[in-house]
């Protein structure tokens, strides 16, 4: 008898065709696990290797004295800030009080330059004629010169000469400048009296301010000198140390390379390899001496700075004609004690600094996660501080959620419970369609349109009282947050709507039968019953927002610094950088295996972990709270 129900078909390696087909499909499905695993693997692999390199880099900056020099640099930078505020205040005040005079002097100066540039030939002719003392030629040369000058002056564009428009409302002064310029003798360089008068008036009027300004500007000269001196020393120590570290590897590479080539090239390579000296240990102790010794100079320079700048600021005028100048000087006065305090602190800390303290492993981690600077394109030193990127991402996400959550939950409630059938048929697909708008398009809109709208309208009186308004930067966190809110809306809306839909009909029937209104039913029964779904929706919205790249890259302003918390809620109007933005911006320019490359992978790993956590949390919430219905 034939066996009726026996399996048929050929077998391969002990499996029949059906098993192979199943295995094939299963393999493809399993690919998703493999991919997720690979993503984790690659991120972790590159990211973890950041820490040893970072440790090395930190050690190098310490032993080369860069760390110490950074104290000096920071002091000098903060000082420079005050100087530039002072200068701004000075010129604001100058413009307010002696705008016309300044316009006269500047415009005349521009004419001077134009005459020297464009009437050079005529000037040479005049000079020659004067030397030769031939009256006829002199007359001719003078005529030619005057004609040239007259042409220049008459053809000159008023807006270009008076580029700041200081004389725009004073035609008389403008005419006098023109006249003075027309009769100006560029060979003798005689400045007309009324220009000189204006200049004197300016100098005299601003004398006390000028003096204070000079005092402030000069107070930091020793510190700045010290800075440039120390920067050079530290940089050279570091370069040499790196060369030393890599010496043996380079030598090996050269020797290996020499094997592969013949003749002169070989000789050259061998010679170069011979030049490389391999030391047992780099003599940091020897090299660092000038920097250690400079501490005395440092203290002295700071003492000078302190004394002079306090005096200078004390001498700044207290009455102003210009409002911005008054504000700026007020700011300087407010900053002064902080600045002095920071100086003292810095001096104290730098006094305790030692080049040979052991830097432990933990600091290579903490300096990354809590560092407030991210500087990668500087010759001086690369600093990887993650905190500004993280805060930027978080603030932008919070702005986005603050806008998107009420909007989308409100819309979901409206569409699901309150609207008419007819409204539902177009609102739902319309909101879902937002998801299809690529983020680059929204970013484009932010950079081309929304930024300008914010800039223009934020100063109008009915909203300018809002925190951070009026906005001064076109690209900022608020702009990015608003666009990201729009990206989060479809996610939150759709999931919320689903959650509301999943609330059993009997709940709303029971509530309505008890005499509750539609809204009371929504408030007290539907929303509480759907709350887990709503929460999950918000979380997934957050996940979408925090991982979004193009909008923040284009619109957030890309300024890597901690937000100025002193602005209160106004921080939302400041520019910032983000975790996603930094990867997108810098990844294309790094070569693989460098510290910078790994730092970006570490940022990626953090981002990945955050979004994974959010995702898992959302799933857990749905699972745990969602099964009562």
């Amino acid at each position, binding site marked *: 008898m034939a066996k009726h129900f026996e399996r048929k078909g050929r077998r391969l390696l002990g499996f029949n065709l059906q098993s192979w087909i199943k295995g094939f499909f299963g393999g493809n499905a399993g690919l998703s696990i493999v991919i997720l695993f690979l993503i984790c693997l690659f991120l972790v692999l590159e990211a973890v290797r950041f820490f040893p390199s970072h440790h090395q880099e930190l050690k190098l900056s310490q032993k080369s004295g860069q760390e110490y020099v950074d104290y000096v640099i920071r002091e000098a930078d903060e000082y420079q800030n005050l100087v530039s505020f002072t200068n701004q205040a000075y010129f604001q005040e100058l413009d307010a009080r002696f705008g016309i005079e300044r316009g006269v002097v500047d415009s005349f100066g521009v004419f001077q330059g134009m005459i020297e540039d464009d009437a050079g030939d005529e000037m040479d002719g005049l000079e020659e004629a004067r030397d030769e003392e031939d009256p006829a030629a002199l007359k001719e040369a003078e005529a030619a010169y005057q004609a040239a000058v007259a042409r220049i002056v008459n053809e000159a564009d008023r807006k270009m000469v008076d580029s700041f428009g200081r004389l725009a409302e004073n035609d008389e002064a403008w005419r006098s400048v023109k006249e003075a310029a027309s009769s100006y003798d560029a060979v003798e360089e005689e400045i007309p009296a009324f220009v000189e008068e204006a200049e004197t008036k300016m100098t005299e009027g601003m004398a006390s301010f000028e003096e204070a300004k000079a005092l402030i500007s000069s107070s930091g000269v020793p510190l700045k000198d010290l800075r440039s001196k120390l920067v050079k020393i530290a940089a050279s120590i570091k370069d040499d140390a790196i060369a030393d570290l890599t010496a043996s590897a380079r030598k090996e590479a050269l020797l290996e390379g020499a094997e592969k080539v013949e003749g002169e090239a070989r000789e050259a390579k061998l010679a170069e390899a011979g030049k490389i000296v391999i030391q047992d240990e780099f003599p940091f102790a020897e090299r660092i001496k000038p920097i250690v010794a400079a501490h005395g100079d440092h203290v002295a320079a700071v003492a000078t700075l302190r004394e002079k700048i306090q005096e200078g600021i004390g001498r700044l005028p207290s009455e102003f004609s210009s409002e911005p100048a008054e504000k700026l000087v007020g700011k300087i006065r407010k900053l002064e004690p902080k600045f002095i305090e920071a100086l003292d602190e810095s001096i104290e800390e730098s006094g305790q600094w030692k080049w040979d303290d052991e830097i432990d492993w933990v600091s290579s981690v903490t300096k990354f996660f809590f560092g407030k600077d991210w500087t990668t394109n500087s010759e001086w030193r690369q600093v990887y501080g993650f905190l500004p990127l993280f805060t930027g991402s978080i603030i932008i996400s919070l702005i986005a959620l603050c806008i998107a959550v009420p909007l989308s939950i409100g819309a979901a409630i409206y569409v699901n419970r309150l609207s008419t059938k007819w409204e539902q048929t177009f609102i739902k697909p319309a909101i879902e369609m937002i998801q299809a708008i690529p983020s680059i398009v929204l970013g484009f809109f932010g950079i081309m349109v929304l930024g300008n709208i914010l800039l223009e309208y934020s100063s109008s009186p009915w909203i300018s009282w809002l925190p951070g308004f009026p906005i001064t930067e076109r690209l900022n966190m608020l702009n990015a947050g608003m666009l990201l809110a729009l990206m989060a809306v479809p996610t939150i809306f759709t999931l919320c709507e689903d959650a509301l839909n999943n609330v059993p009909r009997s709940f709303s029937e029971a509530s309505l*039968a008890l005499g509750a209104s539609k809204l009371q039913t929504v408030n007290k029964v539907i929303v509480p019953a759907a709350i887990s779904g709503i929460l999950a929706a918000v979380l997934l919205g957050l996940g979408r927002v925090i991982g979004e790249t193009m909008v923040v890259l284009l619109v957030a302003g890309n300024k890597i610094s901690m937000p100025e918390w002193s602005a209160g809620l106004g921080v939302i109007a400041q520019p910032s950088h983000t975790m996603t933005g930094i990867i997108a911006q810098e990844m294309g320019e790094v070569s693989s295996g460098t510290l910078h490359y790994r730092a970006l992978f570490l940022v990626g790993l953090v981002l990945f972990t955050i979004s994974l956590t959010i995702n898992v949390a959302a799933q857990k919430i749905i699972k745990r709270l969602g099964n009562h219905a």
Partner: protein
Amino acid sequence: MTETSVTTDPAAAPSVASNEPIIAIDDLSFSYDLGKTNTLRNISLEIPAGKVTAFIGPSGCGKSTLLRCLNRMNDLVDTAKVTTGRISILGQDINAPDVEAIELRKHVGMVFQKYNPFPKSIYENVAYGLRVQGIKNKGILDQAVEESLQKAALWGEVKDRLDSSALGLSGGQQQRLCIARTIAVKPRIVLMDEPCSALDPIATARIEELIAELQEDFTIVIVTHNMQQATRVSDRTAFFYLGELIEYDETQIIFGNPSIKQTEDYVSGRFG
């Protein structure tokens, strides 16, 4: 709080003389599809106050639809429409333009076929109706909750766990909780839509006992497909068939000596 006192204080509620019908349905036709086909046709009946009235009939005969007309739960269906006739409750045409369905439902409560407590605590479930009326006073709420639960014969079983979830109760308890929730707002009328169909016989018996007790305070209209239940709990019975009211009389008469052949066939179990 003035508007809430109207409903919480029974004395202030509009009253009808005991001999007058509390619900008067006059030539009612009702449609679920904007009047194209009538689910209920020309129904007229008067329901006396303080009695239990049962609606019986085979599935799809319109008895639940009529019940849902009485507190305008059918408003939730966009295409529902009363095509002719009127329903008066407490002398008021409930489909008149100046009647607010929400106010009506405060006077005409409803218990559903499938027990449907909210995913809240027992206490909050019972207090819900009062809370939506704006009552926040803890004392009033406590008292109302206890009273209602006692009336629903549930107090003894749940008094120690008022704060635990209502979903932890058994099916019968959940249905009694729903009844407590309904009577907590002190409606004049309680509509019950096959309240026992999802319960086992023991739980059913308890609900039936409860209905008998509630009869003292409320007018009850109950839809049931269980004829024994109708005989046990109701004073009057209405028999519906294919959207029409066939016969309406004292329960003993309907079940003992019906005047219409169809009714007799149905109650004796010959169809349905």
